[in-house]
């Protein structure tokens, strides 16, 4: 086992986790989008590193997609949307940042315990990566449920997908089909989200999801 390659991969994955925490910590939309771009960038780096150590050139494509779409295109687009729609710049939180951070810590602990204990036969390499990936996934989910407005929920969802890609890249020799599908789905997801945001803009003054609750079919 090449210790250097392992350490670098470890550092990059750990970096993603760190950035995830940074995202949870953000209270302003623009800052959130920027941190998300950073998240995607670290992901791209991590995937590229995996490509080099696994000698899997197709992973470079994935890294490129991550860099291009998630680090540049999407944050940029979201910036535009926030600007054009005059969305409130503050991230509306359900629970305080501190509590969310604590919960995040717990999730990281949980995923570490799970992955490190369970996957004994897999390479230590994959194990480390998977533990971080699971943490990122869980943190993404946590972000989705602890934020009220739609943009930060979308960001949470995408960071969740970043975790998935990290996991997929970490799995040795996983065929290209997964990467492509992830990219594909993110694309489609984004389009659909865009469509919805547009429509929701048509009908609502805010993309705060709680506003839509009034339109539930069965009135309380």
């Amino acid at each position: 086992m090449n210790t250097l390659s392992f350490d670098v991969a470890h550092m990059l994955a750990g970096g993603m986790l760190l950035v995830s925490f940074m995202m949870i910590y953000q209270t302003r939309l623009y800052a959130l989008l920027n941190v998300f771009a950073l998240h995607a960038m670290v992901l791209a780096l991590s995937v590229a590193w995996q490509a080099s150590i696994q000698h899997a050139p197709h992973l470079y494509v994935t890294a490129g997609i991550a860099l291009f779409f998630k680090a540049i295109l999407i944050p940029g687009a979201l910036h535009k949307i926030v600007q054009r729609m005059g969305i409130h710049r503050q991230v509306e939180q359900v629970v305080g940042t501190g509590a969310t951070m604590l919960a995040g810590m717990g999730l990281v602990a949980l995923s570490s315990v799970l992955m490190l204990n369970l996957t004994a036969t897999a390479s230590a390499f994959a194990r480390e990566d998977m533990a971080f990936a699971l943490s990122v996934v869980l943190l993404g989910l946590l972000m989705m449920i602890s934020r009220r407005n739609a943009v930060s929920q979308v960001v949470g969802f995408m960071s969740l997908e970043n975790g998935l890609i990290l996991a997929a890249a970490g799995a040795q020799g996983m065929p290209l089909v997964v990467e492509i599908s992830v990219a594909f789905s993110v694309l489609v997801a984004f389009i659909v989200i865009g469509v919805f945001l547009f429509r929701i803009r048509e009908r609502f003054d805010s993309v705060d999801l709680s506003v839509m609750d009034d339109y539930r079919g069965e009135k309380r």
Partner: protein
Amino acid sequence: MSLPFNPVDLILGIPAITALVLFVLPGYRLTSWLNVAASLVTFLAAMTLFFIDRPVPTNYFLVDELNIVFIVLNTFVGFTAAYFSASYIAHELEIGRLTPVYLRFYHAMYQTMMFGMNLVLVTNNIGLMWVAIELATLSTVLMVGIYRTPEALEAAWKYFILGSVGIALALFGTILVYLAAEPVLGEGQAAMVFTRLLPNAAEFDPKILNLAFVFLLLGYGTKVGLVPLHAWLPDAHAEGPTPISAVLSGLLLNVALYAVLRFKMLMTANADTLAPGPLMVVMGLVSLLFAAIMLYRRRDIKRLFAYSSIEHMGIIVFAFGMGGPLANFAGLLHMVMHSLTKSAIFFSVGHIAQIKGSQKTAEIRGLTHSHPVLGWALVIGVLAIAGLPPFGVFMSEFLVVSSTFQRAPALALLFVTGLLLAFGALLMRLTGFAFGEPTGSTKPAHASLVPLYIHMGLVLLAGIYLPGPMVAWFQAVAKLLG
């Protein structure tokens, strides 16, 4: 027997090509009939699977006992729902709820969805399966939101978000399965192919498999509509066009269930894993009981039956979770019967809602008086879905309950409680719908009831007589499921 073509190609190819064609074709009459025709041909192609020699499983496609049942059911209900849709959508166009543009989109999406679901069923690759489910989900999301009312958009949005999270979890589970298989089967495709995974499952790391199954169960379970992952389901059923409700309940849930079953087989093949049974039993029971309770406060007829779908998915998952030849057989039978019955119910509900101009339960009364044929059809459908003989659901519920009681009395009692609660709620509503003084519009229904009759006829037949070959088939599948 061999055919000049591969049915699998047709099953996938026809919907895909038709979808492309429908995107560009104008005119709703033509498109709707093309939709029906394509669905019929797909169904016929699926039927040939019974008669041909099994194609050798490739890295991507697989046809075995288990999925033939699903494929045939899927394409059949796809066809009848398309037929129903043709008459239903015409009326929607008349009253202006839909415009021709959206209608074109609708039919294209219908075939896209069929393509996605068929792909889930015939694929041999867990990655491809994941992609296909994603595709089917996205296309249905768009269909649910097609009316663009605030309620419809909200339902679609909810469906989309919850579905995406579910699908993300499923992907993580898929990756974990690969991770478990990779040390045994080596890197690359092999570690993602069911036919390779299954024989070697015993050597996989059981702990990774456990974790993977948790993610897969939650991920695909979201699509199945298991409580507490069900939240999208009632709204999606209620706010979308009724043919889509029928397809959702009758097909999409089954398709997701099929995915869960595939992975369950993987789990059971490895002796050291956490048994998947108890997990499924618990989720099934929770779904059953919760949905049964929720039925009581429903004031929207389609949401009512959506919750009933959750309830039945709970029953099916419970049955498969219990395992054993009887319960598995019952689970399969119940799944088929539920598909047929529930879609038939949605067919009649669609017409009823169109006549009354409302989906509110309070505004639908005395149907057996004002619309005898439609009303009695609804009565029969609801009685069938509530598990009364001589319909097929009764047989499967009989088998589940009677085979469970000796093995796990407490579970069986809870299960029965759930069934009774659901029964009470459905019957309470049914009494309101079908009897009493009619309210609202009593103009006659110009509905095509053929799909309804076909479905109910099959369900009735199955309740009394199951053909021998079909039984043998189901038994083989039940054995396969362990």
